[in-house]
């Protein structure tokens, strides 16, 4: 394994993108940073700009207004980057899959590496997903 990938695995910077979610997944993502779970132990932090990011966390059905934005943000991210679909909505559309505003699900728009289902997924589930992601990075 090259040093590049080794360093990447130790320092994943996360950009959190909400594609029209109900905010529940977003709250659970922030719960990963709190004293109980503290993912900064593994070097993960939230960053404000997609240029700095290694991981794109997408939540929510990607509604029609968001489709172009999601593609744009993915293009703006410095590669190598991984995309994580968080929650039932961005994985499959969830209960909104027949809705008039449905623009997603996420994997129709950009390549997705990991799906973490749940409504919302627990922080434990997200950490389990990230562990699988780390095993996949090679």
């Amino acid at each position: 394994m090259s040093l590049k990938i080794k360093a990447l695995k130790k320092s994943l910077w996360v950009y959190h993108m909400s594609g029209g979610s109900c905010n529940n997944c977003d709250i659970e993502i922030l719960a990963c940073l709190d004293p109980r779970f503290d993912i900064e132990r593994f070097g993960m932090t939230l960053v404000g700009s997609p240029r700095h990011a290694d991981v794109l966390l997408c939540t929510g059905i990607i509604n029609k207004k968001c489709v172009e934005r999601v593609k744009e943000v993915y293009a703006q991210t410095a590669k190598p980057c991984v995309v994580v679909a968080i929650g039932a909505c961005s994985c499959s559309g969830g209960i909104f899959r027949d809705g008039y505003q449905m623009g997603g699900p996420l994997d129709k728009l950009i390549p997705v590496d990991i799906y973490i289902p749940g409504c919302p997924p627990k922080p434990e589930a997200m950490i389990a997903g990230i562990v699988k992601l780390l095993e996949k990075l090679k």
Partner: protein
Amino acid sequence: MNAVHVLLYFIMSLAAFSVCGMMAMWVDRKVTARLQFRVGPPWYQNFADFAKLAGKETLIPGKASIFMFVFAPVIAVTAAAMCGAVLLLVFRTGFGFPGDVILLLYLLTVPSLAIILGGSSSGNVLASVGISREMKLLLGYELPFACALIIPAVRSGATTSLVEILRFQQANGITLGSISGVIGFLIAVFALQGKIGLVPFDLAEAEGELAGGAFIEYSGILLGLFKLAKAILLIVGPLFVVTLYFGGINFSSVTGVIAGILKYLLILVLFVLVKNTNPRLRIDQALKFYWGWMTLFGIIGILLAVKGL
């Protein structure tokens, strides 16, 4: 000393200050985490961050002015490391180098200027808001910082040479042992907080509202160089205050080095405590703070120093 020696010396001090600066940044992150009842990152975290950023793609936005965009981080790192090289020369004094306070005042300003250059050449609206704040903040903290530099200079017989200030402190006790010294020390700590961009004065980065501010368009190794410059500043700034107010670091004995590191850590932990107990100020509040109270105290401190208190 010829040019090759100077270059080698500079590269060595750049490497040494980079490693120390990243460790200092780790202390910052770890203490912050412990204050929030978290565990915090492992000791090699900042090295991993830098290695990762070095391996990532570097994007240059279409609207950017390429030359300034690429060179601004290089300028920031070079200037920050140059401050460190000057301070090391002063501590060793083997080269008979006087080391001027005003030189360091200039050099410490250059990283902020580089951030302004880099942000303004990236062609992003949020970056331009960030650099406008950085510029106002620069104008704000330079005035009290200059006051904080004048106080030890006046106390040690109106000299701007760092070596002379150190000699005076060895003979007559450290600057912090007097009323004007305490005032000056507090002003210097608050001004450096703005210079390094730690939380009450991190308006230029402002993750929450400006998404990284001046650094928003930076990615890959260029972002890594800016982070490196911040890390070096985090060690050079407090070392400068240690020189002016705590009697510097004595490299001739082991106890001297340990005492020096403890002095440095004291200031660093003070930074982290202020950072973790205060929310971010608005730019007008920050300017009022610097140009109002801090400058007023600075002038009082200078008057006391002239009186010899």
